[in-house]
């Protein structure tokens, strides 16, 4: 811990990291007491999100200057504390999650009220708890701390997935909880205890802790336990929970199942690769090469599923979910190249995908709120009625495909450079093919929305939603929704032009490793 102070020059950085967990917790408590005063409750959410972002941002100068502020909270097991430490990758994740929480809170106001959702207090409360857990994951200083907050994140998002309380939601909830907890307890915990046993520590350290403690097939097996143990990273075949979780209200899908939860998974994998194994060690071992193929397969297979959904003109959120599965594996693939450049690409892709995908979900939710449309076939001509929404959607797709001027281009560039540096032509091939596949399943939706004519009103809807009176004479979504998705779309483009902060953190991550 450096002597520097972070927030307003008075609070040490370690304490700020703790505050980043406490602020949303306190926010949750306040939200819980404001059940009957919705306006005040939503204000509380927004203020909490804003304060949290300021705290996280205040850590930036110190971390960029090379500081690694930390704080020990408790010591549940002898020699294994619950310990927070801020390092570049974690800060990057925390910045993304906390900044997008502000926007999502704004969006939620329009969405939850527009759809007259029930149990809104529980919704905002659990949301704040989920963010607190995500902050804990971001700043976790050792594996046990990471595991603790990882489980808390699963538990706090469970009521959000089952929010509607229908049979379908309950079934999805079972799958969600079942898959995420069984992989984490069955594989991740085993991997952590194995690590503790051979390395004598579970701390995250630059250069890793396993070098010299495991070799050969054991290293490959341990990596397998870690990768599939982080079920939140949704590498096939443990991806099924993600499409199922789409029954949740759209703000949940947007922030949690495109950003906080899924990114917690890939973030964990990057962190384990960099700080537990060490990239050099992974590159030296031959038994760890399988990860490129596992993630490459997931990238392509998930894209093909998405393509099939497009062909059947199915549910848009489902398509987005499979797109997320595919994009998450980009991060894993980049990590699996075990080259510093690709690792920087992995960190950047966590950011780039977050802004792009949240925009896409916001747009999907915006259409649902305004027009009750959920299926792709209903999207014909909707771009003319909702130009802002579908404009933002188009920006999001650019980022997914990896075209300039969207953030996705930068991260993909680094990953590709890394693949060339590692001379891994399979990875290069996967990246190229998947780019084409992304274009193939996102392009037609944008085309339909802007250049095809709307279906005649007489034809009944085939999809879910009720045909509310006047739903065909609709225009744009409620103002908070439009503002929110415009902001995220703008950010997607701005990151392309001003990638300084993410880039600096990604470089700090890679430099810390060497």
């Amino acid at each position, binding site marked *: 811990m450096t002597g520097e102070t972070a927030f307003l020059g008075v609070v040490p950085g370690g304490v700020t990291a703790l505050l980043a967990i406490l602020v949303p917790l306190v926010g949750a408590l306040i939200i819980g007491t404001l059940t009957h005063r919705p306006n005040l409750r939503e204000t509380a959410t927004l203020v909490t999100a804003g304060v949290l972002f300021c705290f996280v941002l205040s850590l930036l100068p110190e971390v960029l200057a090379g500081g690694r502020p930390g704080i020990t909270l408790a010591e*549940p097991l002898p020699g294994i504390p619950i310990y927070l430490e801020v390092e570049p990758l974690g800060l990057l994740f925390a910045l993304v999650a906390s900044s997008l929480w502000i926007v999502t809170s704004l969006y939620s106001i329009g969405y939850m009220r527009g759809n007259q959702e029930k149990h809104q207090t529980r919704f905002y409360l659990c949301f704040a708890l989920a963010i607190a857990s995500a902050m804990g994951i971001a700043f976790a200083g050792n594996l046990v701390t990471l595991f603790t907050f990882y489980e808390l994140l699963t538990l706090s998002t469970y009521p959000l997935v089952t929010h509607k*309380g229908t049979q379908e939601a309950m079934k999805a909830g079972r799958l969600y909880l079942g898959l995420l907890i069984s992989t984490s307890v069955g594989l991740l915990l085993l991997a952590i*205890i194995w690590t503790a046993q051979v390395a004598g520590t579970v701390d995250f350290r630059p250069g890793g802790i396993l070098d010299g403690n495991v070799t050969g097939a054991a290293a490959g097996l341990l990596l397998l336990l870690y990768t599939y143990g982080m079920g939140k990273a949704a590498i096939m075949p443990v991806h099924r929970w993600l499409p199922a979780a789409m029954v949740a209200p759209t703000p949940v899908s947007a922030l949690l199942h495109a950003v906080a939860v899924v990114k917690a998974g890939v973030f964990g994998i990057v962190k384990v690769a960099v700080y537990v194994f060490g990239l050099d060690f992974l590159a030296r071992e031959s038994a760890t090469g399988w990860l490129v193929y596992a993630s490459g397969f997931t990238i392509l297979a998930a894209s093909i599923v998405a393509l099939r959904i497009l062909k059947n003109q199915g549910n848009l959120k489902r398509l987005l979910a499979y797109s997320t599965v595919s994009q998450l594996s980009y991060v894993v693939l980049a990590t699996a190249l075990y080259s510093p450049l690709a690792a920087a690409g992995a960190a950047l892709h966590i950011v780039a995908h977050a802004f792009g995908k949240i925009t896409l979900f916001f747009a999907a939710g915006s259409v649902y709120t305004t027009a009750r449309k959920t299926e792709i076939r209903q999207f014909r001509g909707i771009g003319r009625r909702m130009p802002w929404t579908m404009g933002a959607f188009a920006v999001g797709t650019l980022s997914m495909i990896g075209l300039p001027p969207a953030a996705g281009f930068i991260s993909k560039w680094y990953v590709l450079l890394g693949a060339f540096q590692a001379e891994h032509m399979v990875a290069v091939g996967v990246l190229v093919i998947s780019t084409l596949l992304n274009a193939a399943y996102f392009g037609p939706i944008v085309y339909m929305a802007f250049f095809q004519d709307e279906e005649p009103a007489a034809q009944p809807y085939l999809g879910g939603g009720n045909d509310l009176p006047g739903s065909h004479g609709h225009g744009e979504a409620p103002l908070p929704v439009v503002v929110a998705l415009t902001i995220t779309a703008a950010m997607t483009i701005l990151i392309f032009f001003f990638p300084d902060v993410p880039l600096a953190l990604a470089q700090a991550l890679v430099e810390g490793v060497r």
Partner: protein
Amino acid sequence: MLNHLPILQVIVPLMVAPIAALVRRRGGAWLLAVFATWTSLGIAILLLRQVLDGGTIIYSLGGWAAPWGIEYRVDMVSAYVLVIVAGVGAIVTPYALMSVRREVGVKQAPLLYSALLLCLTGLLGITITGDVFNLFVFLEISSISAYALIAMGPDRRALHAAYKYLIMGSIGATFIVIGIGMLYIMTGTLNMADLAVRLPSVGGRTVSVAFAFLAVGISLKLALFPLHAWLPDAYTYAPSTVTAFLASTATKVAVYMLVRVFFTVFGIAFSFQTMNLDRVLLPLALLAILSASVTAIYQKNVKRLLAYSSVAQVGYMILGISLASVTGLTAGLIHLFNHALMKGALFMAVGAVMYQVGSVRIEAMNGLGRRMPWTMAAFVAAGLSLIGIPLTVGFISKWFLVLAAVEKGMWLVAVAVLVGSLLAIVYVWKVVEAAYFRQYVGSLEVREAPLSLLLPTWVLVLASVYFGVDASLTAGVARMAAEFLMGVAP
């Protein structure tokens, strides 16, 4: 006075028990029980501190030295178990007041408190004594009073359950006394410390047979698979208070008995190298964990569900012990404490449901999440601990257990432990889904349980979180006890 703490530990509940049965004033018996249990807890804590400071305490009854008189011996292991048993007693008695009034009735209540105190006496006695025959006597005291306690259940099936336990328990006790008799024939002593010294030089078939009798008898008492048949019925039909008490103490003391007899009396070398006890216990423990967890999933009655879960949890303790390493033994002993906390809380939460709703079937829990928020929140929190979520005691147990298995390179065992946790998710979540996602259908106006039921329940829940966040005390004591048993302590 402080010198006589070992005998006071047993004598206080023993003396108060008959008085409690005779008191006619309403609530008088309860007050006496509260007094006796809290005094016991105080004594147990003082004893633990004395042992931590000054090492093993040896107390000769009536001043008669060991081979002739009975000796009480308080070392790290027994002091630790005494605190657990007395602690559970002290938490359960305040809870009993309302629950017993509703389930057993005012008329029989004094008898219940009296039997409860006798049972406590027996359990504390087993733990504190250094004499094998005295151990058998206390075992009978605790068992017979337990039969009576179970038979007081509100349902007539309780009688059948108590009868079944009576038959099985008596067989177990008979096996134990036969084993003790054989040891006495071969060595001429009943004192544990003496036995430990003489047995290695005696050896022979009789000692091996005695070993086998004791192993089977104790396994019956601790409901080790497949000798667990008595337990589910007994836990299901006993009054809620009794179930909470027995689930957190009786099997724990039986586990203590196992540790005491096989580690101290027979010695590790004989038990694990000559007799290969671990080759029997380990597979049985694994079977207990897996089969009982699966059976729990199919239960419709929550008390029975938790009873099967207890059989599985006993499996975890035995598993740790059968690894016969310091880490394994630490895991087994720490789970002794941790399981007492979480199972106690779970049974007490279910008891609160019984109090308000009058049934403990899963359907009866439908929609209770909104009607009894505190009770169900306690259930969920303790249930998460059972699953082994971090920041709860269950996680600490799992950590040590898996660590011990990995240390020995027993990967399948490690996986089995984790599979057991996954099965726990399924059976805990059955109740959670009923309470939070189904509609309440009852015609009665059901409200939150009274404070006197909630408070003790939450004390255990909070304790299970506290010792999950900071296990230095429990893990420290359990480790010291394990090192003492393995003979690596100073």
